[in-house]
């Protein structure tokens, strides 16, 4: 079983988001992590490999710092990594998916895994677009996965329950929280991660250029949420305070 896992390096969930002088999100001093949903995907890939045999390749688009996420996946047990550096190109979901699909089509694959969304932009589009470009089925937000006889049987949560879907391989499956509990990278794995192959490519290596991936969506501006206003304490006797609270909820907050 040849498994490809799509991985993105994102801001740490604890990171404080600030805007720089140009109004763009500032990444200086922010610690980066592997997108947690992609971590579920890596773990699932490793479990399938351990059961069925095969090979796990992790793939990412990004600069030097995206290597950390790939190395983490290698330390967890993935066999090799592919990193595509997009250079100066501005990326949107279309561009990223085009690059990933091109990189994957150079590999042999039976199954493609990824997080259902990244915690930074949260667009939840890239894996689905990759499936579309490669012309293979996709099952999203999966919390249970079985591979048997050239098919994937995936369980996904729906609003009112869950559904079980069967798709022929190759297919794209995206991970939702609950699919598994990702392992910690092993210490031996960390020390050996650098010895595992990491194939670094440029857009030109993939036969792409800025024109072929030019973003279709451009972010016009970013703004931070309004800081939370201080709460209000209503003094006085309980009964009277409750009356006052009800009045404020009705007349000021207009919620009752």
């Amino acid at each position, binding site marked *: 079983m040849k498994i490809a896992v799509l991985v993105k390096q994102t801001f740490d969930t604890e990171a404080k988001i600030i805007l720089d002088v140009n109004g763009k999100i500032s990444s200086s001093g922010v610690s980066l992590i592997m997108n947690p949903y992609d971590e579920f995907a890596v773990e699932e890939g490793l479990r399938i490999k351990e059961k069925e045999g095969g090979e796990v390749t992790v793939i990412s688009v990004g600069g030097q710092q995206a290597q950390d996420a790939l*190395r983490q996946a290698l330390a967890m047990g993935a066999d090799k990594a592919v990193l595509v550096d997009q250079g100066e190109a501005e990326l949107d979901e279309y561009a990223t998916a085009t690059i990933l699909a091109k990189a994957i089509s150079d590999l042999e694959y039976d199954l493609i895994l990824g997080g259902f969304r990244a915690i930074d932009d949260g667009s939840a589009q890239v894996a689905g677009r990759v499936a579309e470009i490669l012309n293979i089925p996709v099952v999203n937000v999966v919390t249970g996965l079985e591979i048997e006889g050239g098919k994937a049987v995936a369980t996904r949560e729906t609003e009112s329950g869950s559904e079980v879907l069967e798709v022929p391989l190759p297919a794209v499956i995206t991970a939702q929280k609950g699919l598994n509990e990702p392992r*910690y*990278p092993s*210490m031996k794995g960390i*020390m050996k991660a650098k010895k595992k192959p990491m194939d670094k490519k440029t857009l030109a290596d993939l036969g792409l250029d800025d024109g072929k991936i030019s973003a279709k969506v451009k972010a016009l501006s970013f703004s931070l949420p309004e800081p939370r206003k201080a709460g209000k304490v209503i003094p006085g006797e309980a009964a009277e305070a409750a009356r006052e609270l009800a009045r404020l909820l009705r007349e000021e907050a207009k919620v009752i």
Partner: protein
Amino acid sequence: MAHWLFTEEHELVRKTVRNWVEKEIKPYVEEWENAGEFPRELFARAGELGFLGLTYPEEYGGSGEDYLAGAVFFEEMARCGSAGVAAGLGASMAIAGPQIYKFGSEELKNRFLPPTISGKKIGALAITEPNAGSDVASIQTTARNMGDHYLVNGSKIFITNGVRADYVVTAVKTDPAAGHKGISLLVIEKGTPGFTVAKKLDKLGWNTSDTGELVFEDCRVPGENLVGRENMGFYYIMQNFAWERLVMALEAVASAQLAIDVAAEYARQRVQFGRPLSKFQVTRHKLADMASLVETARCLTYHALSLYVSGRDAVTEVAMAKLYACEIANRVTDEAVQIHGGYGYMMEYPVQRFWRDARIGTIGGGTSDIMKQVIAGRLIK
């Protein structure tokens, strides 16, 4: 930003340990503090994840003899806010184990290192006695060589992991007349007739680690349990002190940093005279002083660590790092309590624990006074 001393691999070790501390240690710290120890299973868990093997080669189950990775492990462990947890794991991994690894026979290494590294066995190092602290050469526990075994008599005190250790690397006098030249190390296993734990000791801090008083009465220890050569124990102990002291300095820096982080957060939230404490110059300057002390200690400790890992003579710098880092950890945690005011004195807030836990730093692993002796000894020939 990562310090130049550490590689990409070390930063991944850091991230992994941090994640583990966050998920599997921090939520339980209060419970373990109240219980007076962390669960024994934590050794096995730390072993399973490879943390206890960071400073040991693969042939015994480690991941390579990487002291920088070990340093990262102890720095991150300190972030759990209960110094006893690292003290317990460290007493086995960084204090008892190295004596066997560096000086023991192949047979001893094969018997004790794999289970120490996997966390299936807990080790302790027993040197201190009721009448012998800083003056190591004056220990009174004796071991008579009876041919195929030793007969051990005496007692040990303040032994970290002493209560539940599976084996205790014990400093004994094999030649009572020879002072420091008459000391040997014996590995004494739990259950050896004549070896008992007199009691678990109550402490000011480090409450998640168990500390024991051990008694040996005509305890028969097999001759093959001798570490290295007879009467060389003092030199073996002194050699591993460098690593133990570095670990203590690293933990002191990390704990003091934690105290600053907690105090700064408290200062942002606590309002007096209509403003958060963090808006008052007095608090800001206090925090700036604390941060400068910690940064100085960190630089000195990293410098000593870099000398140590490069194999150069690091005795003076390690003593300086241990001295300085542990002294300022007392000051910084004390100031952190001060910033918390009355709440700082309450058991409900963890800052009091940082202060209590820090206090051992200038006493254990060689007191500050002994560190000064070491430094002065190098300075004044």
